[in-house]
């Protein structure tokens, strides 16, 4: 009997989670960079804008600073999803370890163990992969 949920399939799921995490990290880094750029503009741009504007430089600097801080704060949003996906990766790794340890089980009990692991894997996958 061969397991439907084998280590190859789990590797594929883990790869998906890691790719999703990379996307999150990419967005986060992009937002942090954008926020930092906006905050840096708060030091550079107002002095140039205020040359042709009657608005005082400190007001423009304050507005750019607030905008940069707001954008940067958005980078904290995916933290929960990243943590959740890391938990899933840990679970998938545990399942891979269980499947690998199945080879050490005596042949008389292997079928039963495979049946139990198959059922457990399905429950875990249905619960974790879709939540």
């Amino acid at each position, binding site marked *: 009997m061969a397991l439907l949920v084998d280590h190859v399939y789990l590797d594929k*799921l883990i790869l998906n989670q890691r790719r999703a995490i990379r996307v999150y990290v990419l967005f986060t880094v992009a*937002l942090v960079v954008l926020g930092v750029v*906006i905050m840096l503009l708060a030091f550079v741009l107002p002095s140039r804008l205020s040359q042709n504007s009657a608005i005082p430089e400190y007001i423009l600097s304050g507005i750019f600073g607030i*905008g940069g801080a707001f954008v940067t704060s*958005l980078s904290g*949003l*995916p933290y929960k*999803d990243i943590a959740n996906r890391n938990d899933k990766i840990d679970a998938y790794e545990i399942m891979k370890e269980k499947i690998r340890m199945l080879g050490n089980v005596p042949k008389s009990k292997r079928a039963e163990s495979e049946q139990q692991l198959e059922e457990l894997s399905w429950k875990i996958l249905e619960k974790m*992969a879709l939540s």
Partner: protein
Amino acid sequence: MDSSDERLESLTRNIEEYERRARRRVWISFSVPLFFGLLFLGYTLWQIQVYGEKLAGVQVELTKQTSDLNAAEGTLQAIQGDLNQSNETLDELQVTSTAVANDLRSSQDNLLQLADQLTQTTDELQRRSDFLAYSIEIDSSAIKEALFEYPSEAQVDLLNYILALQERRIPYDGNGFSEREGFNSPNFTVYVMQQCGLVSDDYGANSGPQSMLSVINQDELSIGDIVFDELGSGYSMFYFELGGGEKFLIGMTPAGILAVEPEFILAPKYFEVPYKPSGESQCPRGVPKS
């Protein structure tokens, strides 16, 4: 096993669908706040630009108003300068007008003095005109005829002496008591009587005949006596008659030695001149007789 494969395939599809939704959710969760944040930032910058332009317009208007205000201030300072200059001119005019007022006041005083002098002159002229109105011309032939009717030689000598003084144009002087200075009317009578030896030489100026002669009534009046005016004019004149009983008075007036009608004295008081009973006279003989 077919059902297991289908189950696995279904699970795989669900996982893929879930991942797609997760990615979409993540994209939206990032992009929507980012979009609105950037939109807010852009709108704020746009508003700043708009209000900056308005503010620039207001600044231009303010600059214009400031320029106008400075121009008005300059004009005000110029006006203030003109006002100060006018004030100085006004002060000078005030000083000048004060000086002119003082001159005017002085001139007015002078005019008043001149008016007083004119009044005095007018009064003098009036008096002279009065003298002239009452004066009479003495015909020398008539006098010669009348001299024979006089009580004595003394009255004749006295009249001739007076007429001689009249020819010498002895002047009138309010305080004088000499032929050179002149006489007033009472002093003249006193001087004539002294020269003719009728009263003492001790009497001087301002003695007056009333202080040395005795008063008589009008009916006691005789030729050569003195008629005195009690009204205060102080006229004191000798009484004489011409031929035919025509009466006249002669003595010193402001117009000189004149012969006037008796009515010239308004309030007469009569004094007797003490002629000597012998008719002797001491009137100066060096005086030419008419």
